[in-house]
């Protein structure tokens, strides 16, 4: 099969069946948009999970009115533990300031009094500290009189991990559904194109065209359908992301502790090229079934 000739003939095919292909590409784009959106959600959930799993942190909330001496003694004791990387005290005012800075909220929330934020000791654990050991430390610290409570973030992290796992499973299911959509839509489009060009195919065969020469343009058309649809989906998602990002990023950061991110460039390239490959596969399957040359 001469690729140049296949492209020229595929272009002629697109020209002749322009409406059919427009409908097919738009349908495929919706399917790819679902997949890209699922991947975007997974990307951000994974970033959150990564952020929280990597932190290995513990927040010890100090009881109101606890003497500074006790608090400093506790901090020193914690800092000397081999499992602890660092232990820093955070006053109520500093906690408020950090919230306003990290959350990027401003406005009314920035006007909250410092009393609304409890003083704390922020403990960073060394890498490799087991969950059981961290829980043991938290339990012992919890019995100290100056301590109001201890947050190890383990429950939140477990929920997040569960959410990411669910999201990944969902994305996998969506990917399979999208593949089925691509196979069905591209396959049926090619089938219609083959039926519409039956005379043309007969002429080609009588003039000495090989099977690959006849099939070539249809494969190119399938590839272009998949490629174009996935590209349209990614571009559309990118535009939507850009529009919403400026408005929602601060809130998301405040809620999750991580800033929203778009799809990794490698994922984008894989998605777009994968669309093309899926188009070729769908077209080949359809030709195998419906094109008797």
């Amino acid at each position, binding site marked *: 099969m001469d690729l140049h000739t296949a492209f020229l003939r595929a272009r*002629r095919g697109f020209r*002749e069946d322009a409406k059919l292909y427009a409908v097919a590409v738009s349908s495929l784009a919706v399917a790819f948009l679902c997949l890209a959106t699922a991947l975007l959600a997974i990307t951000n959930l994974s970033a959150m999970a990564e952020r929280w799993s990597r932190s290995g942190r513990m927040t010890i909330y100090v009881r109101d009115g606890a003497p500074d001496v006790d608090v400093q003694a506790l901090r020193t004791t914690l800092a000397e533990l081999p499992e602890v990387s660092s232990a820093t005290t955070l006053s109520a005012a500093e906690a408020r300031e950090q919230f306003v800075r990290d959350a990027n909220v401003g406005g009314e929330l920035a006007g909250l009094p410092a009393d609304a934020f409890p003083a704390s000791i922020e403990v960073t654990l060394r890498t490799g500290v087991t969950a059981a050991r961290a829980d043991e430390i938290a339990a012992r610290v919890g019995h100290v009189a100056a301590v109001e409570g201890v947050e190890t973030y383990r429950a939140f992290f477990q929920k997040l991990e569960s959410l990411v796992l669910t999201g990944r499973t969902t994305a996998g299911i969506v990917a399979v559904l999208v593949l089925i959509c691509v196979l069905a839509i591209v396959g049926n489009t090619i089938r219609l194109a083959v039926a519409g060009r039956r005379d043309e195919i007969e*002429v080609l065969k009588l003039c000495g065209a090989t099977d690959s020469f006849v099939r070539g343009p249809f494969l190119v058309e399938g590839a272009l359908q998949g490629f174009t649809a996935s590209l349209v989906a990614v571009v559309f998602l990118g535009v939507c992301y850009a529009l919403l990002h400026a408005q929602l990023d601060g809130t998301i950061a405040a809620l999750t502790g991580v800033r929203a991110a778009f799809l990794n460039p490698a994922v984008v390239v894989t998605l777009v090229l994968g669309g093309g490959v899926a188009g070729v596969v769908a077209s080949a399957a359809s030709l195998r079934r419906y094109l008797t040359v």
Partner: protein
Amino acid sequence: MSKRGPRTPAQAGGHETTGSRPFSFFRAGARNDGSAREKPILVLEDVYKYFDRDRPVLRGANLTIERGEFVFITGPSGAGKSTMLQLIYRKLMVDDGRILFCGRDIARLTGDSVPYLRRNLGIVFQDFKVVPHWTVAENVAVPLEILSMPQKVVRSRVAEALERVGLAGRGNDRTAVLSGGEQQRVAVARAIVTEPALVLADEPTGNLDPQLAIDILTLFEEINESGITVVFATHDHSLLEARPHRLVVIDEGRVFEARSGLQDWQGSGAVRRPEPTAAPVHVHTRGARIDADPTDVVQLHRVAG
């Protein structure tokens, strides 16, 4: 990935005459058989074709066509003219016997090799088989695109072919807007654009009025004068009468051959048949009746009116 066979000089854009064509067609990498030039372009040896086991369409057909010949194949509708041509371009397979194209048995070709056989043939049909929504040039260019010729060569060869069939300057017209005669000329141009060794015309005038039919026949004769062998199947007796070419009659699956056309037949009367049949055969065609004597002769008579 290409399975193209080695190009002939003519296919590559040269102007070598058809008579010296090397016929390297069957598969990529196939050896050029120099002795093929010395052999008849087409030989049918005891060819049988059955669609119904009891009534073979062709029964023991024997025929030899030399290079540069113009051969009429005639017979009543259903006699097996189209079947014979379809066996030659391998749309159908012989059930018994051999068909040799340039000395090669085409019945033994694998399916993958058939396209390379067809690249050495030009085929014209009664229903034109042109793609109506393509332009004239796009239709004619198809065999050249299959050969992956450069666009520049394609354009010049298409223009040359259109000029030969009297459609110079019509390349950009949509084929659908052309008349029947013009569409058939497009089909002829497509058949000859690669300068094939053999042109098979299957009732090419069947959809045309008598004057256009004569024009198309003349066109085929001009093609034949350039050295291309032409096999012209028709049941139109007015065409057979008009030109003194070699005439082959197919009737009830058997092939009867005359050295020249209808006019000579009426003068000399008969041709030897390979095997006698039990009963006389009466073949009615437009303008004449062909009587096959059960002993060994075929006679043609004008039909009144």
